[in-house]
């Protein structure tokens, strides 16, 4: 691949093709591994779905039964027939295990909410009903959810300071990993399936050996945390491995102050073998807030979205060692999630409507008090290799 940012831009520059409308704010967005569906977790206790197999991108009936916010959502790993072929650009950042080791979780969507419920759905069915559901998977807010590479296990984490492992097949609790002393925001399986990482509010990343259930290493991401007066600010908001499992990205903000939280969106790239930070990527200024979601592209760059002060949001592509992104898009307000299509040629961003903030009553728009919502911007990437 060329090192020239211009060549990278030419090769990967996205073009917006559609905006999907919603009537509520959406916290997380993911494509199904088959590529035909897009799912969003809502701040209205619903899961929204769109059939993205054609240009119409029609919305399916929402999945209901959750409480609070659905902020954690993951699909089971892709069937082998849908995996990108060798040498093909794009695809999932988690490699598939060999045939025969695949779990029975194919065709399933796992969602978790801020009231502690974890649910499994046959997402492709129009009127999907839960295959199973655990009402109190956590005491309160489930922050993160990941599916193991073999599709057999789910990992969840939350405000109860616990990491829990579940059978993807039936929702049976398999293991509880206790060791954090703070809210846990994110979990991710290592692509080899032997380790799990979890990141908390105070920037502690723990590496768990799945066989023993013990913490075997800790990575230091404390620069993503600040105590501001009474408020603990920041935290490891997302974790992602590269496809080979050589790099772990931990992201959030480098906080400056709490309340009206200000901080610089920051990603720490850890070398998996040494546990040391190889690169630190910060973008923008204090008003740019958090990295809310990211994807490590097989070509060695990160795709990420940010949300800061109302109206401020970024979608950018950047190689960790580069001083600037080779692609930066700032026309979307407050981007909260980024989903990359399994073929690598489409992405979707959950953003926020314009003029989302303001003190006091809204004047001149009738008596109805307006809420905000998330336009979902769909981009296509160039198909030429």
């Amino acid at each position, binding site marked *: 691949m060329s090192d020239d940012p211009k060549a990278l831009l030419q090769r990967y520059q996205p073009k917006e093709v559609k905006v999907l409308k919603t009537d*509520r*704010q959406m916290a997380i967005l993911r494509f199904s591994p088959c590529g035909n569906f897009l799912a969003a977790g809502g*701040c*209205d*206790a619903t899961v929204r779905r769109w059939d993205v197999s054609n240009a119409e991108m029609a919305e399916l009936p929402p999945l209901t039964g959750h*409480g*609070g*916010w659905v*902020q954690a959502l993951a699909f089971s790993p892709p069937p082998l027939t849908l995996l990108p072929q060798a040498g093909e650009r794009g695809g999932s950042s988690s490699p598939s295990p060999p045939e025969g080791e695949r779990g029975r979780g194919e065709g399933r969507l796992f969602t978790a909410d*801020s*009231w502690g419920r974890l649910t499994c759905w046959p997402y492709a069915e129009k009127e999907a009903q839960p295959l199973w559901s655990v009402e109190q998977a956590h005491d*309160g*807010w489930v922050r993160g959810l990941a599916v193991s590479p073999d599709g057999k296990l789910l990992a969840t984490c939350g*405000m109860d300071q616990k990491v829990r492992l579940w059978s993807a097949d039936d929702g049976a609790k398999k293991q509880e990993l206790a060791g954090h002393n703070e*809210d846990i925001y994110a979990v991710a399986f290592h692509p080899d399936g032997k380790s799990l990482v979890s990141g908390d*509010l105070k920037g502690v990343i723990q590496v768990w050996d799945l066989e023993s259930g013990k913490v075997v290493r800790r990575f230091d991401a404390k620069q993503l945390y600040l105590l*501001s*007066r*009474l*408020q*603990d*600010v920041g*935290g490891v908001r997302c974790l992602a491995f590269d496809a080979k499992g050589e790099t772990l990205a931990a992201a959030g903000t480098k906080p400056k102050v*709490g*309340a*009206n*939280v*200000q901080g610089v969106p920051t990603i720490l790239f850890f070398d998996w073998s040494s546990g040391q930070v190889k690169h630190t990527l910060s973008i923008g200024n204090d008003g740019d*807030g*958090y990295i809310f979601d990211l994807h490590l592209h097989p070509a060695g760059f990160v795709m990420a979205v940010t*949300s*800061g*002060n*109302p*109206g*401020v*949001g970024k979608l950018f592509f950047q190689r960790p060692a580069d001083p600037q992104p080779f692609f930066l898009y700032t026309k979307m*307000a*407050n981007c*909260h999630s980024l989903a990359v299509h399994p073929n690598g040629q489409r992405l979707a961003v959950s953003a*926020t*409507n314009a003029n*989302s*903030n*303001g*003190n*006091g*009553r809204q004047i001149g728009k009738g008596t109805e*008090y*307006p*809420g*905000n919502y998330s336009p979902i911007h769909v981009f296509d990437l160039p198909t030429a290799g």
Partner: protein
Amino acid sequence: MNFEYLCRPLEHRMSRRQWLGGVAGAAVGALGLGGLAQPAVAQELKKKHRQVLFIWLDGGISQLESWDPKPNTQFGGPFRAIPTSVPGIHISELLPKTARQMHHLALVRSLCTKDNSHSAGVARIQRGDPKNRGVTYPYFGSAVAKLLGPGDSGLPPYVWVKPGSGGFVYQDAGFLGPRYGAVAFGDGKPPENLLLNPALTEADDEARNALRMKLDRRYAERRRKEWTEANSYVFDMAAQLRKQARLFDPSTLPPRDVERYGTHEFGRHMLLARRLLEAGVTFVKVNSYGWDTHGDNFNGHLSMVPKVDQAFAAMIEDLKDRGMLDNVLVIMMSEFGRTPRINGHVGRDHWPEAWSLVMAGCGLKRGVVVGKTNERGTHVTTEEHDIGHMFHTWFQALGINPKEHSYDNGGQPLPIAHEDCHAVTELLA
């Protein structure tokens, strides 16, 4: 010069003699209680004059993440509501300890006030939003200091425990004059240089003070009395505080109380506030800053509200155990609530249209909720209550009838609470 326009009703004047005379009694209250009060001491406390604990969450706590949750509605946010010790009353899951004290509390969910900016809102709320009569009204703390007086504690009647710097905040007093300003203990610490410099003997100090007083008298001859009074008041106050320096010594706190209130800033300050109330201070204000959660509101509240919950619940429990809840009016509030609408920064903005506060203590009903908001939490559906209604209610609870009492501002009678408002009788015992 004639300064008769000054308000100085004799019954509320605080003389140096009164100040000094109260010290002995205060020592019992301040230092003799550590742990649970003995019945005899509790009885003694009951005889004390009424007091106020005013907790100010500066910037605006979200009513939806505290006293008026709307789970699973458009603006309800991620958190659940939990039951309390009063059947039928639910509050946010972020307040589990306070939920167990609900039978001592009174919630107001019908606040509808006017300002949505901090600069106007803080002063307007704490001054009770009186009608404009061309004078600056006192903050509630100064008003109470004036109307209830210092009691017999020998301590300043209006004390403010706050993060950051301390000092004498005379501005709070408005037209009452600087003497009714707040003595602020920055970060809960006594004023700098309070203790006598070891290089000075008591005799040196007395001689120094005699010289100062002589100069003060000369200085006062041609100046406004309220200013010179305030000047000497500060020195008197310092002398008394010096005698009660143990109030500020954390090493004398029972470890169990430190744990119960929390080692965080708010917990430490609330524990000091309890000591000051025990010592007999008439009005104790505790400030917490950082509640203006325009960004990351939910994580912010998840981090901060449980700390407030911890210390607030411990305070209510202790006041109850000490028999002080009958004499102390407790109020916890902000300058406004936060918008139901969640902005793109996952924050909530300023919302004076429909918000809440919590109270407890003297003169109030217990285990009650007054007012209701609509299903989405956007507006009040029962009678709206402005801050003037709260001032009427608070004064009534303290035994002061705002319809009968007025300030005398140099012959100008001024109502102590907005005359178009009234007490919320559903809250009064």
